[in-house]
């Protein structure tokens, strides 16, 4: 008995060590964000902030606030737009069993495998013709190409678990299809909808390639692009850079704690089976 307890304890120690190694870059990001700039420009950077400073955060907040706001706008826009399209689609596929659902599902699965560079170039050529370069809708649509397939997969997998009997009962009571969606399917799928919205937000939040290619100048600069320009300028203000990075990681960490149960399941749902 004692030996077994010892062995589980050893496992915990190994587990802690592995996690520490894996999360070291994150630790380093936080460490650098709190270390004074002049100490960073040393061949022997301190392993932990000896005299922590919030200068990095101050400069990040004074310079990067607009770009964070831009990212939030695009993220919320993408999440909203994706739900607007994905909820009825998942409902039609899962509960109404519309013919043609299968091929659309295949297209959505394949869409997830489409290299972003292919889309970027085509969208650039198309956007140039219709004036969507440098616009919020342009970026929201581009991000939705990733958000919608994932959302449909997550929502459909969830709606498949809602018993048909519930809908049938409502139908007998004279509820139409829109009413069934509104009164039964959406409330019951609340968790899945939250997950899909958060994932959509995160896709747009993390986007770099569309932001870099479909915008120009300083009108619309999401934080990913701001961060890239920041380091491109060979800055010495690395605690500012890392403070921005830390702030930009907050939504992801929040997401992990709030919706942890659903995320891993949600992301793998489409890839394994539904």
């Amino acid at each position, binding site marked *: 008995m004692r030996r077994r307890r010892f062995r589980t304890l050893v496992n915990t120690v190994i587990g802690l060590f592995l996690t520490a190694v894996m999360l070291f870059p994150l630790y380093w*990001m936080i460490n650098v964000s709190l270390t004074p700039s002049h100490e960073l420009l040393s061949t022997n950077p301190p392993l932990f902030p000896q005299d922590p400073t919030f200068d990095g955060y101050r400069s990040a907040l004074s310079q990067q606030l607009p770009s964070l706001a831009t990212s939030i706008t695009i993220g919320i826009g993408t999440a909203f737009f994706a739900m607007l399209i994905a909820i009825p689609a998942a409902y*039609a596929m899962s509960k109404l069993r519309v013919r043609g659902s299968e091929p659309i599902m295949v297209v*959505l699965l394949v869409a997830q495998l489409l290299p972003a*560079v292919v889309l970027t170039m085509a969208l650039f*050529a*198309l956007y140039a013709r219709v004036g969507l370069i440098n616009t919020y809708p342009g970026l929201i649509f581009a991000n939705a190409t990733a958000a919608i397939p994932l959302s449909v997969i997550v929502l459909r997998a969830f709606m498949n678990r809602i018993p*048909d009997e519930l809908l049938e009962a409502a139908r007998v009571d004279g509820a139409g299809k829109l009413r069934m969606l509104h009164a039964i399917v959406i409330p019951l799928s609340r968790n899945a909808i939250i997950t899909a919205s958060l994932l959509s937000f995160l896709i747009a939040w993390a986007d770099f390639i569309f932001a870099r290619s479909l915008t120009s100048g300083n009108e619309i600069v999401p934080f990913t692009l701001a961060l890239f320009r920041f380091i491109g300028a060979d800055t010495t203000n690395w605690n500012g850079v890392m403070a921005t990075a830390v702030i930009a990681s907050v939504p992801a960490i929040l997401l992990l704690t709030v919706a942890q149960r659903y995320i891993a399941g949600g992301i793998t749902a489409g890839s394994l089976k539904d």
Partner: protein
Amino acid sequence: MTIQHQHRRVEASGPTSPARLRAAARLSTIGRVAFLLPVVAFVVIFLLVPVVRSLILSMQDWTMRSFVTGEAPFIGFDNYARVFSDPAFTRVAWQTTVFTVVSLLVQYVIGLALAIFFSRRFPLSMLLRSLMLIPWLLPIVVSATTWRWMFHQDYGVINARLFDGTDIGWLSTPELSLWSVIIANIWLGIPFNLVMLYGGLQSIPDSVYEAAAIDGAGPWRIFTSITFPLLRPVSTVTLLLGLVYTLKAFDIIWVMSRGGPVNSSHTLSTWSYQFAFETERALGVGSAVATILFFIAVVFGFFYMWTLRREARQ
């Protein structure tokens, strides 16, 4: 399901005239299709049209002038000829292979080892396993920025702590840049492999292990003749998906090294982007490279879909 069937049968034998029933059915079909229309429209406009557009683009001479005038002459396969005769092509193709294969294999091996480890029951195992997923959720630009600073020749922690202060130019030496990018990319991919393989391990029933233990099989024997074979379907899906994701990888390379120095860390993905948006604004040439990449991804993508189907049937 059953209730719905019964219901339909009742309707069919009801007193309503067949014509009215058919009309009602048609109306109901239209009503149902209406829910699917938005997604169909979106798929057509923002996925199918762009794919076709990109194929056409790869046969056009599209330059910055086209951006203004809207004119881009059709030149057939000239862009492809140019790509294949480019001195950097073989190099980039080889680097793409190395980047993909090495990332994939190492991610898989580490992910599997971690999945097996975290399948053991010990205090904090759940918490630690979910913490391991954080790198997956971070914006890649954020991770790439961090790795870039960690790899910094003069001030990076990797040189300072792991290489005794030697000033190794991880990202500035052509021989090392690809490997630096691969290391960061492996780190990015471990959580995905961990989640997939952990899920797969959970679906292997305990009784199988117990039976093997009774037969006196050691841990290695259990791994080679039970765990690994039973995990094969999940492994296949994980590797195929990982393969396509790795082929697509762009942000990590672009932020860390921009494909340089001297093309040494380009893959087809970043190389195509460079043609299209950087040096020449040659969207046509870039699209030709992207199309090559696309076809490789499609081949493995279909392989993946085929595996999914076969598994669903079993």
